[in-house]
């Protein structure tokens, strides 16, 4: 990142955005803080090299995503997550309700699919950039994106507002 002179400047300039990014991945404020702090701590140790590579933002984001994915893997796949309420809004034009529902359904996606969506639709990264962050092939990014969007479309809670309880998060 051109113009970044010190680690502190970087954190002050980009900390809020990194926390938003981590929060969208984790949906948990405390976990988001932990992820970002851990990532920044790791970055601090290699700050000179990271700055020389002119890409501290991508570097930190990559650590956040990787830590998020490994953290998710460590969690039990039996874990039950937040459920979409039994009573689902009937007015599909209600943007607020739509967002709320989509936010809940997003939580049910596998972590890599959710990460791809956040990187693409929130961070506005291109597919090659997402591939770089996730450390995977371009085709994998496209596949993950496609599957994630498809899952959102067909999810009964989202697609037709049918009363649904979502339970198991991980495949």
């Amino acid at each position, binding site marked *: 990142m051109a113009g970044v002179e010190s680690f502190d400047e970087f954190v002050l300039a980009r900390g809020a955005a990194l*926390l938003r990014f981590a929060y969208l991945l984790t949906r948990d404020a405390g976990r*988001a803080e932990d992820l970002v702090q851990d990532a920044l*701590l790791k970055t601090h140790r290699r700050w000179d090299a990271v700055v020389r590579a002119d890409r501290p933002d991508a570097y930190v984001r990559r650590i956040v995503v990787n830590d998020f994915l490994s953290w998710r893997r460590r969690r039990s796949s039996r874990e039950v997550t937040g459920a979409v309420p039994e009573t689902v809004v009937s007015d599909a034009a209600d943007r607020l309700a739509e967002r709320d529902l*989509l936010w809940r359904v997003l939580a049910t996606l596998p972590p890599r699919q959710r990460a791809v969506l956040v990187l693409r639709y929130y961070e506005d990264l291109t597919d090659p950039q997402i591939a770089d962050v996730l450390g995977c092939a371009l085709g994998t990014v496209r596949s993950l994106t496609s599957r994630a969007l498809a899952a959102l479309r067909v999810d009964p809670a989202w697609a037709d507002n049918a009363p649904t309880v979502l339970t198991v998060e991980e495949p």
Partner: protein
Amino acid sequence: MTDLEHLLRDTLTVHGNDAPDASGLLAGVHQRRRQRHRRRVQAGAALTAVTTVAALVTAGMLLTSHRQPSTVGNSTTTPAPAPTTSGTTPTSAGVPAGTQAVSLAGVEVFVPKAWKLNDERCGTPIADTAINDNGRVIPTCLIMQPHRLTVVRIERLSTSFGTLRASVATTTTTVDGQPARRGTGVLAQLLAPITSLVLPKQGVVVSVESPDPAAIQQILDSVRVVSVDANGCATAMPLFTVRGHPETLNSRLQVPASATTAVICRYSATTLAQSTPLTTSQRGTLAGILNALSVGVSHIKANSTMVTSSCADSAARGFVVQFAYPGKAALRIFVRIEGCGALFASDGTHTTKLNEQLIETLVGISGYDGNTPGPGQLQ
């Protein structure tokens, strides 16, 4: 872009605003960095981690060491006068056998020596312990407190939890002639019943939660009000005046290696926040570091984004390292490692710059969590 993708973007943008506030992020990172560094320093240098005995406070004090050189008239530095004390409060009479002192703002309480002090995670005790809540930075996380612990807290009345825990103390009493209040109650917010002893003049509350009533009684009965704590630190920040331009002084600190005891006294808001006695190896290490410091004063680099606190606040904070020698007056070295203006170590006659080794050693030994300069931030 499809409607779903539009909605997805919209949803992520809106919920991104629910992310935690970033204002404490930098401080949190540096705190964790220092904690890790401390562990390495302590392991590598065999500096035995001495859990701190926290301290006390009262007093009015003046510290003028933060004056900018341009505002100072001559080039002499005066040694620190003796600390002002109330005259009514005793010097600590030593630590009763089997106990260790925990003190804050001139109030001292004695707890079992076997206890690890500040033995908590994220503010929640995880074993029998005494906690000195003197402005520590407490990270957030959710930890369940084990049942049937005995926990002693010494904290300032001015804090929200201090005020809360003081609210159960409704019976008037005295401690070393000082007005006090004592009482027991159950606070819904804190779940467990506590017994508190409040010393309004010192602005301190000592509270105990324990399944053992006798332990509560014994611990609170041990509370005393002192002007010098059990480790030899004055409870009021010693007056330390630098009248001259420190950079005109041209000789290094001279800390003889023959000290028999040494202690680090940390002051906050002009009162003793923490005192930490040094082991023999720590004494030697610290003396060596102090003797090697270069003459002059340090400043935070102009291009550093490190946030320094207000001058008034930082003038009321600092470390005093006291070395005791047989048959001689103690050597006291004032070390200013944070805040605005000049940062330095000085015995009143010799004034030197700081280095990272000194900062890390002081921070490592005392466990201080303040916003001290990191690598490369001093000039």
